[in-house]
Each structure stands twice: as structure tokens, then as C-alpha cells.
């Protein structure tokens, strides 16, 4: 039995791009249907941001408590090593995911968005068939937002399956592996690798390039390298993974020598690819931009009234970018004039320590021919950081501004807890702040945000506390 539905707006994909677009559209009075095959929340909520942060937090807590064993850090001592029941950790993580996913369902209902659970396959640009548990549902829409997301990139010589896992499986392990090898030292691999190291795994990284976190400059990466050492994590740079057999990874090291490493789990984190297959993209008549769907600054595809957002349309593959695009497209369909023109999109690595970056680094600005002033403030000189045991490890806040008018071009930080500073960083750039605006904002004492004010003063010449 075939059911036919029509609507003003069809959103395909219930991740942070799609569900936000659908809620916004519903709020704006558009008759909207959201199709999602899995649970609501997408990669971010089900297989990415949220579960990984839960695991990272649990791992961090476990690691901290271990530090109190015996010698009594801060005067707090434990007789025995804390016990880890990882299955309970996973359960706790799942409870957070469940709560948030259920929350999205509630929000969609509140916005009067109809949800259809099933896999959508497009017959043409405006019509799709959804395989639901109750049979095929055909949906015809005036507008379509494609928010199909992305998946972990597979290496042909290390296909996923068994003990070769992607980040998705890494978040649903039953137990902490004894030995874990991570291929790819980008932010996803490092976040998970460090977490499992803290949970007790012996972790080794295989990275093909000469640097971990290649998107960040050396200065920012330095504290992470220190932390890797502290957690006994080995990193093989300029190394090429070859094959994985009988829980042994063979790889070519930087000298060209073949080595082998034992691994209970081999985590492959070498990037993500847009989901372009299995849903009828060929029938949509949209243009491509390399491995992504081509869109303009309003997320319009080449096909009239077909829109694409999030990971489908390219880097940065970040949930908050997808949400912002989804919100914008819903508003455009509702008749508003909108364009996607952020000054910058902040990105955070939840490594140990965390890295946050918004806008241009000094090198990127120089490459554009801009004359810049930079200011750096070490967390070691920040009172609050010291009281949270976050002052060591070489963390800092760095600000980059134009020399001529002091317009802030970029803000970067590395250190524990710096992810929570990202909001002020992004806000400063969006508001068109100058160094004087930041140094002229009274930052609360004692907080780590003071470091930003000090970095601005440093760029202007004279910080107070160094």
C-alpha cells in the first residue's frame, strides 16, 4: 500500500542541519516533513559530537581521579586505583544521547513538523519514496532541503569491519581495548585516541603527514604533543598504514621500514565524505563541486527549489555550520532575504588540551597580504586557569588583528576548557571588534576569559599580567 503525502518543504536528514531547518520552517508556518532513517540527531548527536564528548569527559574524569591515587593531589588522596566499568560509562553516554534525541522529536512536534521514519530515495528532484515500516510513503514537495550528512572515509586496504572501526564504532565499544592503533591524527582520531588512552588503552597513532592536526599551526599543536607524551601515546609521523591482519597492523615508518603493531582495535579516522549514494542523487539534476553538492551563498543547488546544507556542501563539516545553513534556508523559503555570510565559523578540537580557532591565523593573514599584529597570553599567567590546574601544559590565547585599523581577524587558543571561550571569540569577529573593543571589555575575574582581554592588550603592546 502506497501512501502519498505533499508538503511545502521536505527536509531529508535529521541531523543538526536538517532538524534545525525543519524546526525553523515549522516555526515560520511552512508545511514541513522531515525524513530520517535512523534516530533523530544525525552524526552529531548519535555518532559524533555528543557521544564523543561524553566519553571524553568520562575518560578525563577517570584520568583525574587516578592522579589522586597514593600521593594525594590537592591533598585529596585515594588508597586504591579507581575502578572503571566501561559498560556503565557507555550506558551513561547513551542516556544523554537518548535524552537529546527525544528532545528533538518534541521540538519538531511543537513546531508542527511531520516526521517520517525511513530511507528516502528521490524519483525526481521534488518527489521521493520513503521505505517506512508501514510501507512506501511517497512525498512530493515544493521545496527540498538535502541534509544527508557524511560518513567516515574508508581506506580501501583497511576496510571497516571486525576490529577495523570508524569513529562510529569507537563510540559504542563494549570495553576499553588494551591496544589501540589510530590511523589518522586529525581531530577526530586524536579526541578518541586520547580518551581511550586515559581510559587505559595503549594508543599509537599512524599519521601520513609530518604533523598532527595539520589544519592548525605548530604553536597551537605543541601543547597537544606534550600531552600525548604525558599519556604515553606514540605518534608515527610520515608513516603509511599498509594492512591489518590477525590484529596486527603493518605500516611503513618515516624511514621506509615496514613495522608491525599489535592492535585489539584499529581506529581509522582519515576524514569524512559527503553521503552521495543510495538516495537518488542522480535523479536530482544538481551540479557537483568535486566531492560535494554545489551551492551558492544561499545554499541553492542548480535545481530550482532544491537546497543543500551541511556536510553535503563541503568544509567545514561542522554541526553548527549545518544548523546555521538550515535555519537560513528555512527563512529564505519563508520569504525572507538571507545569505550565508559569517565572518568566521569557530572550530574546536576536544583534544587534551582543547584547541579553539576562529578566523585567520597570523600565517593565513600574512598569506593574504595583510599586515598583522598578534598578541599572546599564556594561561600560566591566568589566575583562574591555575586554580583549575589548567595553567600548565603551555596553553595560551592568541589574537590576530590588522595592523592598520586593529580589526580582529582571528582568535585561537589552546588549553584545558578553552572550548567554552569560543563563543566570545566568534562574537568578537562577527561584531567587527577591534583590539580596543576586546581590551575595553571588562572580563570577569577570575575567569579564563581574562586571557582574551590580555591577549588584546599584548597585541596593542602592553599586557598587564606578563
Amino acid at each position, binding site marked *: 500500500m502506497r501512501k502519498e503525502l505533499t508538503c511545502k518543504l521536505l527536509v531529508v536528514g535529521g541531523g543538526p542541519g536538517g532538524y534545525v531547518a525543519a524546526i525553523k520552517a515549522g516555526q515560520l508556518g511552512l508545511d514541513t516533513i522531515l525524513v530520517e532513517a535512523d534516530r533523530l540527531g544525525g552524526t552529531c548527536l548519535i555518532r559524533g559530537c555528543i557521544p564523543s564528548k561524553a566519553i571524553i569527559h568520562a575518560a578525563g574524569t577517570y584520568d583525574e581521579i587516578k592522579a589522586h591515587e597514593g600521593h594525594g593531589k590537592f591533598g585529596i588522596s585515594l588508597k586504591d586505583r579507581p575502578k572503571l566499568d566501561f559498560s556503565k560509562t557507555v550506558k551513561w553516554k547513551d542516556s544523554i544521547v537518548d535524552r537529546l534525541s527525544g528532545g528533538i522529536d518534541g521540538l519538531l512536534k511543537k513546531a508542527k513538523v511531520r516526521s517520517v521514519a525511513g530511507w528516502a530515495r528521490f524519483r525526481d528532484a521534488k518527489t521521493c519514496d520513503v521505505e517506512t515500516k508501514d510501507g512506501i510513503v511517497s512525498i512530493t514537495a515544493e521545496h527540498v532541503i538535502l541534509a544527508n550528512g557524511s560518513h567516515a572515509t574508508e581506506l580501501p586496504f583497511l576496510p571497516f569491519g571486525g576490529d577495523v572501526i570508524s569513529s562510529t564504532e569507537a563510540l559504542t565499544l563494549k570495553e576499553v581495548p588494551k591496544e589501540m592503533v589510530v590511523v589518522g591524527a586529525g581531530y577526530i582520531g586524536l579526541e578518541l585516541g586520547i580518551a581511550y588512552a586515559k581510559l587505559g588503552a595503549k594508543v599509537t597513532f599512524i599519521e601520513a603527514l609530518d604533523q598532527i592536526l595539520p589544519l592548525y599551526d605548530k604553536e597551537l599543536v605543541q601543547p597537544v604533543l606534550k600531552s600525548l607524551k604525558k599519556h604515553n601515546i606514540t605518534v608515527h609521523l610520515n608513516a603509511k598504514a599498509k594492512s591489518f591482519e590477525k590484529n596486527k597492523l603493518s605500516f611503513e615508518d618515516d624511514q621506509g621500514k615496514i613495522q608491525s603493531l599489535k592492535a585489539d582495535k584499529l581506529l581509522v579516522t582519515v576524514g569524512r565524505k559527503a553521503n552521495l549514494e543510495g538516495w537518488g542523487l542522480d535523479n536530482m539534476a544538481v551540479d557537483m563541486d568535486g566531492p560535494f553538492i554545489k551551492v551558492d551563498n544561499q545554499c541553492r543547488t542548480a535545481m530550482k527549489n532544491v537546497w543543500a546544507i551541511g556536510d553535503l556542501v563541503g568544509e567545514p563539516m561542522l554541526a553548527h555550520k549545518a544548523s546555521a545553513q538550515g535555519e537560513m534556508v528555512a527563512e529564505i523559503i519563508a520569504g*525572507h532575504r538571507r545569505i550565508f555570510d559569517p565572518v568566521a565559523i569557530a572550530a574546536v578540537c576536544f583534544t587534551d588540551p582543547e584547541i579553539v580557532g576562529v578566523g585567520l591565523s597570523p600565517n593565513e593573514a600574512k598569506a593574504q597580504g595583510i599586515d598583522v599584529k598578534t598578541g599572546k597570553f599564556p594561561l600560566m599567567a591566568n589566575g583562574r586557569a591555575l586554580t583549575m590546574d589548567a595553567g600548565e601544559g603551555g596553553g595560551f590565547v592568541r589574537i590576530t588583528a590588522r595592523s592598520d585599523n586593529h580589526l580582529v581577524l582571528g582568535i585561537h587558543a589552546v588549553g584545558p576548557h578553552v572550548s567554552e571561550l569560543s563563543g566570545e571569540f566568534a562574537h568578537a569577529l562577527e561584531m567587527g571588534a577591534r583590539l580596543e573593543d576586546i581590551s575595553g571589555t571588562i572580563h570577569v575575574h577570575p575567569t579564563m576569559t581574562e586571557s582574551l582581554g590580555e591577549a588584546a592588550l599584548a597585541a596593542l603592546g602592553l599586557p598587564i599580567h606578563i
Partner: protein
Amino acid sequence: MGEYHFKLPDLGEGIVEAEIAALHAKVGDKVKEDQPIIDMMTDKATVELPSPVDGTILSIAGNAGDQVAVGSVLVVFAVEGQGNSDTVSVPEPVEAEKAAPVEEKKPVEKTAEKTAELTLPKKKVSTPQSLKVTSGSKAIASPAVRRKALDENINLDLVPGSGPAGRISHEDLEAFIACGGRIATQTKQKKTAIEEIPVIGIRRKIAERMQLSKRSIPHYSYVEEVDVSELENLRLHMNENRVEDQPKLSILPFIMMATAKAMAKFPQCNAHFDEENSLIHQYSAIHLGIAAQTANGLMVPVVSHAEVRDVWDMAAEMIRVSDAARRGKAKREELSGSTVTITSLGKIGGIVTTPVINYPEVAIIGVNKIVERPMVIKGAVQIRQMMNLSSSFDHRIVDGYNAAEMIQYMKGLLEHPATLFMGE
């Protein structure tokens, strides 16, 4: 190293001060002897002052638009050797004091430029937009401002930002909308910039003179039409038959001839009124001021002793002094001393004008355009070349009756051109 104090030289009889019209060099500049450094303007003439020495400029006594007394130190140079500062008793602090108020007088500029030295005044006040241009990136505005701009269909690149680094505030955007910014993305845009032009130099002189004239002289104007058909025939004939070194004649030399004759007959119109001493200086010589438009504004070069000139001579001299005035090369005596003035806008002369008397003269003859008009002559309509004379008089000195008589006399001369060339 010594200092050379360059005093403002005497620029002409009776001149006690002059205005700095333009600076061609600034403090800190190295200049060569005879290199033009400053233009000084007196009543009517602008004089280019060359540097008297090789040296570096240490100070200048003012900025464009400032008055400097004759004999006071205008420029101080650092020079090789002794200099001449020993011979001049102008202590340094005086220089500094002089320079300070000059700074305050500078036209308001919002540029980031804050050079301490005296610099040439900017021609226009820079708008914050210019700062935006230097930033070399897209408009700086908060997300809310950007969203509002989109809603209102406004290209933010066109909105002048008043904030630091050219940031566009809600107020900037609202002001832009209020003055019609909605159409900013179309080809025709309402413009909001105000150019501030300091009234200096010749423009200031013109303003002063016009104000003086209109304030102190009770003007009245008298308009009469003149049939110049005969005169035009004569003029064409003369032009066709002129010899090589004779200038081509416009109508103006004939009007100058008529004016010269009229002034001889009505000398009360050829006078200066000395209000302070309650005296009328009635001149026997007739020096004709010829109002001329120059790039810098209105100037009045003078054809002196019109009473002795014939029409060719009148034309040649008029062309010579007008050219000199236009090129800024007129001598001071060629720009002063007129006893009566003629003003003509030629082909754009209109029907009627109300000329402003060239103070302290008492009469000005305005020439309007020649047009063909149907005129009734002896009961029949004929097409005639008609021209109006619009003239103003100082009613304190010239009674209306006399003025009318004088213009009627000119009309008679011009309508019967042979009489222009006859003695009384």
C-alpha cells in the same frame, strides 16, 4: 647649520598683509633656491614666492587661508652656514605660538592622519568610507545589522560606517535608509556625502567684496532693450575686412566704446564713492573693469584709459588682460583701479541680470544676449537683432533719471553705430 628667516616681502603699494593661497612645500621638506614654495594672495593678485635659499623648512607661519603681515617671518629654513637669523629678532617661541592657532583653524578632518606638521588642507573631508576602502575587506557590521541590510535590500558596501575601522552601526544603517538607501542597490543613488570646502583665496575675496558691495550700496537696476541690427552688420563687415594683426571683434568692444563715451558725458557714473570721507572721486580717465570668469572664480581685469582707445585697441587690450587674469598671470595693476565695470555672460547672457556694483564704483553695465525678435517699426513687423542692457547704480550717488539718461544715450550710440566713432 644656521637658520634663515624669510620675511613676507612687500607685495605692492598699500598692502599690509596677504593671505596664504597655497603651500607647495611643507615643514620638513628640503627645497632648492628659486623653487616655488608658497602662493601669497593680495587684494586681487596671487604671487608665487620662490624659496630664497637652499635648505630645509623648519616652520611656516600659517596654513592656506591664513593672513600673514608683510615683514613678518613667513618661513624659517635650516641652511648650511650662518643663515640670517642673527639679523632678525624673532624668537622661536613666537613661531610656536603662531603655529598653534593655525592648527585649530584647519578644516575639520576625520582622517586617521595626524601628522603634527602643518600640511596642506585636504580638499574634502574624508568620509569613513575611505577608511573602509583601506581595510580592503567587506563591510564591517554586526550580524543584526547585516540581516537588517538584507531585509532592506541594501548593499552594506555602500553604507558609510561611523564606527572605528569603518564599522557600520544600526544608526548608520538607519540614517542610510532614512535618506533613501532603499534604492542604493539601483543604479541611481541618493548621495549623502557633504564636501566641506574652506572659503579661502579668491573665493573668500569674492565673498568679501560682494558682501561689502551689497551691504553698503543701495542698488537699483535699469533694463533697456537695444536694437543692435545695424551694429551687428557693422561688426560682421569689420571682421570680414580686418587685417591680420587685428583681433576678431565681439560685441563687447563696441559696448566698451559706448560706455567710454557715456562716461565722458555722464561723469557722475564714472566715480568712486569714498564713504568715510563723504567724497565722490569723479575720474576723468575711464578705466573699464571687465568681469571675467576664471577657473578660480570671478575676476575683474581692467582696460585702462578707454577714453584714448579705438575699437581694435579696446578689443586687443581686453583680450590681453582677460587672458592674463584667466591664467593667473595678471599684474596687480591690471586687476585694480577700474572706474566703471562691464559684465557680460556672452551667449548665456539671458534676458535680464541684476549686476552687483564693483565697490567702490557707482555703476555697472550688464550686457544680455542678442536675440532675433519681431519688432514693430513704422507699423510693420520686422525681425531685428535685439539686446538688453541690465545695469545697476549706486542710488546714493546716481539718480534714476540720470542713469536712465545715460543708458538711453548708450542705446542711441549702439543703435546708430556711426556715432560711436564721432566726436561730440
